[in-house]
Every structure is written in structure tokens, then in C-alpha cells.
């Protein structure tokens, strides 16, 4: 398959692995920020192929995992008690809320639809003028432009029955929070390629300078991932720190200006609570006042309290890279995909789910 098979080429992978092995002389901990990259590393068996001196730490880049429980509870409440058609990306369905997940809410009669695009939700709202439609707008900078566009489109169509429940979070503040943690073990980052496709490169420069940490914007295929790792390791071994772009075929330094413009048109930056991690300044996207008619929080007068739950779940430590999932005492015991304590065990991009599903049964 064009643009795919060449990035899964066994010979190229082998050559990159040999280069990494030749380059590395000491222990390095590299964080891949994005859950899509974690998925790629696991799906292709790359973690097992890397030399022991290169340890990958799985970052907080799974938007589903960091969505606060209280927001999931709001989504459940909207579809069960407010006669709302709740539209969501598929990943959110299994994530546990305080009492139930959206999947369980659907089984109890909630009208939950899995969509690939928020514009489909706008279409559902247009076709069902007597029903309220809410799109659960989850994701990083990648999904934010489309979700913003849905609000703009709904306003153009003068729809009064469409709104979004924004759970959007931003990557650079999370990377900052990880570096700010005294116990952090991260020596270099693979930054999330698709986030940078939208946002460009520049917002990572201050991070590199402040923390003197290599950041390489990286893609998702095996050749991308290994090339990104090689670039980080090469910098680290030389004692250098720079912002580099491995994913040049997709990412340019300015990003996608019209997408960034849409985000700025609809959303503003505010402090956001991250499940398992806590509050991070300027890390969330909230619907601006001029679009408040399309903001489910305002429309249904919802308030979000800081999470009180997850006391047993160590997902924060996992997402900050302090522990690997199997080091959590609950892993595979009291926490499984069927009975999760936290989101990383059920999201397909969650690190705990990846380790659980891909580990051997005895």
C-alpha cells in the first residue's frame, strides 16, 4: 500500500535498529507522547526489538485516558436523563464513569451514537430538529479543528439543538507538567506527529530550551518511530538538545493555519483537570462565550468538580512514566479491561490496555 508499506519495510527497520544499537552507550528513557505511537510500538512488536538501554515511557497522549470522570458522568447524565442524542468517538464508550460507562448507559436506553466525525453529529441535529444532539468533543489538537468546525457549521445552519461537550486537552502543557515533576525520568521526547500537523513546530521550542531536552516530532509507522528514536538517541549521546522533525512528509513548521484559526475562533485556553494527573494550567480548550449556545456546559448548566475518584488507580504514575503498567499492584488483578479501575485499561491507546492485551497468558 503506497505511503504505508514503505514505512513497514523489514530491511529499513533492521538497518535503523542496528544504527540505534551502534549509537547508544548508556541508559536513556524516551517518552512517546502520543497513544497512537504507543499503539504502533506495541502492534509491530518494536518494544521487544529495541536494545535494553533504550526504554520507552508511554506518555499521557491518550485523550480518552485523561478525560475527567466527572465529564463522562455528565455525558451519561445527558443521554439518560435529558433525552439527548449523545454522539461520541468509539474509544470513549468503555471508559468507566463514577456509576457507569457510556456503553452501559446505552444498554440502559441512552441514545449513544458512535461517529467518526462531528459533522455527522451536526447532520443528525439537522435531521432531528426535535431532539437535542450533543457531541462529546474529546481529543488533542488533532480533533479540535473538526469539532470547532462543527460549531461554526451549526451556527451557520442556525441549529438550536446542537452543542458540544468539550473535553479537549493540549499536548505542550502536558509535556511541561511532566518535565516539571521532580521525579520525572524522561530524557527525550517523541512529539506527536499528528498534533504537530495541525499546530506546527514552534510551540515546542520553549520547552526544548527551558528543559534542555531533545524533542523529535515523529510519525506512527515502524520506520518513523525507529527513525525518531534514533534522532533522539543521537542528540542525547552527543549531549545536544534540539527540536527536530522526523515526520517531514506530513508536518511543516507552520502547521495548518486554517485549522489553527478554527480552534482560535471557537475555543479559548483555560486550566483543565487531567484524569489521574490533576490540574494543568492553560491545558484545556473551552468554548468561547460568543458560541455559548453551542456549549453543552452552558446549555445544561453543568459544572465539573475536580475528580475525587480513581484513588486506587495509578494511571497518573503510568502516564507520567513513573511506573510501567505491570508494576501497578492492581494490574491484571483488580483492574482488567472487563473491570477497569481507570481509563488506560480500556482505551485502545491506553498503556495499561496495551500491556494487558499483549502480554502472555500462562
Amino acid at each position: 500500500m503506497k505511503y504505508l508499506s514503505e514505512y513497514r519495510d523489514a530491511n529499513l527497520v533492521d538497518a535503523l535498529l542496528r544504527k540505534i544499537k551502534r549509537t547508544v552507550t548508556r541508559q536513556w528513557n524516551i517518552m512517546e507522547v502520543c497513544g497512537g505511537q504507543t499503539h504502533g510500538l506495541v502492534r509491530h512488536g518494536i518494544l521487544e526489538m529495541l536494545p535494553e538501554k533504550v526504554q520507552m515511557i508511554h506518555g499521557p497522549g491518550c485523550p480518552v485516558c485523561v478525560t475527567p470522570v466527572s465529564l463522562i458522568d455528565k455525558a451519561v447524565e445527558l443521554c439518560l436523563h435529558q433525552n439527548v442524542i449523545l454522539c461520541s468517538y468509539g474509544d470513549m464508550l468503555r471508559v468507566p464513569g463514577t456509576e457507569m460507562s457510556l456503553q452501559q448507559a446505552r444498554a440502559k436506553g441512552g441514545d449513544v451514537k458512535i461517529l467518526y466525525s462531528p459533522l455527522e453529529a451536526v447532520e443528525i441535529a439537522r435531521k432531528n430538529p426535535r431532539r437535542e444532539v450533543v457531541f462529546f468533543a474529546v481529543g488533542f489538537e488533532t480533533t479540535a479543528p473538526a469539532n470547532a468546525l462543527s460549531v461554526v457549521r451549526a451556527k451557520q445552519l442556525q441549529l438550536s439543538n446542537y452543542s458540544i461537550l468539550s473535553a479537549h486537552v493540549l499536548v505542550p502543557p502536558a509535556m511541561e507538567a511532566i518535565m516539571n515533576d521532580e521525579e520525572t525520568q524522561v530524557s527525550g521526547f517523541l512529539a506527536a506527529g499528528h498534533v504537530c500537523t495541525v499546530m506546527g513546530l514552534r510551540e515546542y521550542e520553549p520547552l526544548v530550551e527551558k528543559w534542555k531536552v531533545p524533542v523529535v516530532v515523529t510519525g506512527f509507522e515502524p520506520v518513523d518511530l525507529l527513525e525518531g528514536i534514533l534522532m533522539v538517541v543521537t542528540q542525547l549521546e552527543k549531549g545536544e538538545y534540539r527540536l527536530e522533525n522526523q515526520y517531514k512528509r506530513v508536518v511543516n513548521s507552520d502547521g495548518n493555519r486554517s485549522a489553527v484559526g478554527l480552534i482560535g475562533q471557537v475555543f479559548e485556553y483555560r486550566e483543565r483537570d487531567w484524569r489521574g494527573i490533576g490540574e494543568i494550567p492553560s491545558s484545556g480548550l473551552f468554548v468561547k462565550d460568543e458560541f455559548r449556545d453551542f456549549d453543552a456546559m452552558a446549555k445544561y448548566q453543568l459544572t465539573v468538580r475536580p475528580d475525587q475518584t480513581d484513588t486506587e488507580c495509578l494511571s497518573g504514575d503510568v502516564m507520567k512514566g513513573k511506573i510501567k503498567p505491570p508494576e501497578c499492584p492492581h494490574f491484571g488483578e483488580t483492574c482488567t479491561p472487563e473491570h477497569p479501575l481507570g481509563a488506560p485499561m480500556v482505551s485502545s491507546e491506553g498503556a495499561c490496555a496495551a500491556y494487558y492485551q499483549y502480554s502472555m497468558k500462562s
Partner: protein
Amino acid sequence: MNKKPHFPGNCPASLLDFDTITLGHGGGGKLTQQLLNSGVFTLLDNEWLQEQGDAAVINVKEKMAFSTDSFVVSPIIFPGGTIGDLAVNGTVNDLAVSGALPEFLSLSFILEEGLNMEHFWAILLSIREACATAGVHVITGDTKVVERGKGDQIFINTTGLGRVHQKADLGMQRICAGDAVILSGPLARHGIAIMSKREGLEFETKLESDTRPLHEICQKLIGTLGSSIRLMRDPTRGGVATVLHEIARQTKLGVDLFEKNLPIEDEVGGACEMLGLDPLFVANEGLFVAVVESDQAGHCLQIIQEWEHGKNAAIIGAITEEHARNVVLNSTIGGRRVLPQTSGELLPRIC
């Protein structure tokens, strides 16, 4: 086999004073008779249906295979098929991979009030054609109608009976370390064809479902290779991965899967990438997995590849004593990882 029915036009709606199914069609009275006589009995006519008894009576002297399945697919008419031929082929294939030659089917409908007669007619026609292709007779059946909102247009149950080939000796207990795992064709086609038409997911593709009967090729393999064929399964819901997990779990052996050998069409692979789905977990219809004694794997592959739908068949794996109870995928790039089990509904990824 492809003869058109003897109705003016293609749909009995023109002859009848209704164009949708109503609750009365399930009431057992005049409307039910009208529906059956003008449609089902005429189309599927055979000596057993003509009896119109409470049960069909048949003579059985040999070892038989018996299987049942229910079909709830949405949409009910999709590229390459309908819920009707799926219901016939589904049960036919459960018998076929059990080493049996399918002979008789039961056919039960649960119809939702308001079902469009033209759709029902199209489904009946596809059932007739699928039965003719598979050489099976529908000898008993039932029709019920539920209120609007209590069903999803149409649900079908079929139960099948077939004669088991004398040389068939199939079963999980016959699988040994060293056996080869063969897949009869490219995977994930049916699931992706269905998804391409599902509300909210529509995308442009010419892909059609691969629904088809497998009895001829399965009978031929058993006739030629006899007990060297250890097991056959059709990897429908849950996909090829689920069949491999069943093998690993029940035999307490390991399965090595070779990603680079997996036959997959470009369009299916592309759609899976786009939708964030692993083709190993996507449903198939006209496909089977065979576990074969290693000495005969080449011969088996050759026979399947000579079949009109088997040219992309491949040896996709091997049974091993290592990593017992686990399916290990050897990735295209040389990595190894455990193939996970699905924990329920197939959900697309966010990005």
C-alpha cells in the same frame, strides 16, 4: 439457478394490497397465508414445503451435522448480498466446515412491522438463489411479526442438517504441534463492505461482501486429504483472530501467525487503517481457516488455490508447543507480539 420468479414484475406487492409488513402478517390468518403463498412457498417450492405440515419428515441414516445461527445484520441489503443469502450461507458454512454436505434448512423470520415489501422480496430472492447454489432445501420455517420499534426490520434464523463426509475426522483434539494453518482467501472483506454502508460511516468503496457457500471446497479437501485436515472453521464474527484464539485455548498449544503471509486486499487494508480497525478482528463470510498436517499443507494449499475463490489462499501460521495458549504474531518487520483477544464490541480508535 438464476431464473426469475413467475410474478408479474419482481415484487408481489403489485399483486397484493399492501406494500409493507403489518402485524396481521404474523397473525396466522388470511394475511399470513397471502404472504406465504404469494412469496415464500412459491419461491422456495419443494416436496416438503408442499406438505405444509407442522413438521417436515425426512429419512436420516448416516452421520449428520446439525447447526443453527441467527442473523441480525444491518443494513439488511448491502454490497454483495442481503441478510437472506447471509442466513443461508452462514448455516451452510457451519455445516461445510464441520465436514458435512448441507441438505436441509429451516428458515424463520422475525419481521418488524413496517418492513418494506420490496426489501422483503429482494431478501427472499437472494435466499432462493443462495439455496440453489448451495444445493439445500428449505423444508420448514416460521414467520412472526413484531411491533414497530421492537426489531430492526428483519431477523432471520436458519438451522441446517447435512451428511458428514465419511473421511471427515475433524476436531480440536486432532491438532498437533507442527500443523499448518491455512486461510482460504483475503480477510476482512465482508465486515468492511458492511461498514462502508452503515449509517454514519458511509465511505466510497466498490468492495462487496464475500458471502458464498464453502461446501464444495470443504468436501473436496476432505475427499482428497481425509484425516490430514485436522480442523476447519469459518471466521465470521470476531474474525480470524478469534478462531486462532479458540484453537490456542482449546488445544492448550500455541499459534504462530505470520503477518507478512496474511492475504489482504489493498482496499480492505486501506479502509482498516482509516477506520482504526485490525483486519484480523473484522468479520468474514466466504472464508475458512484450515489446520492441516504439515506434510500435506502444500497439497492442501494447491487445492484451495485452484478453487475459483481461493487464488489468494496462504499458509498464515503454524501450531507450536511454545507459548502455549497464546497466539503470537510475527510482524512484517520482524517483531513479535501476542495477538490480543477482543473484549467485546469492535470500537474504532479516536485518531
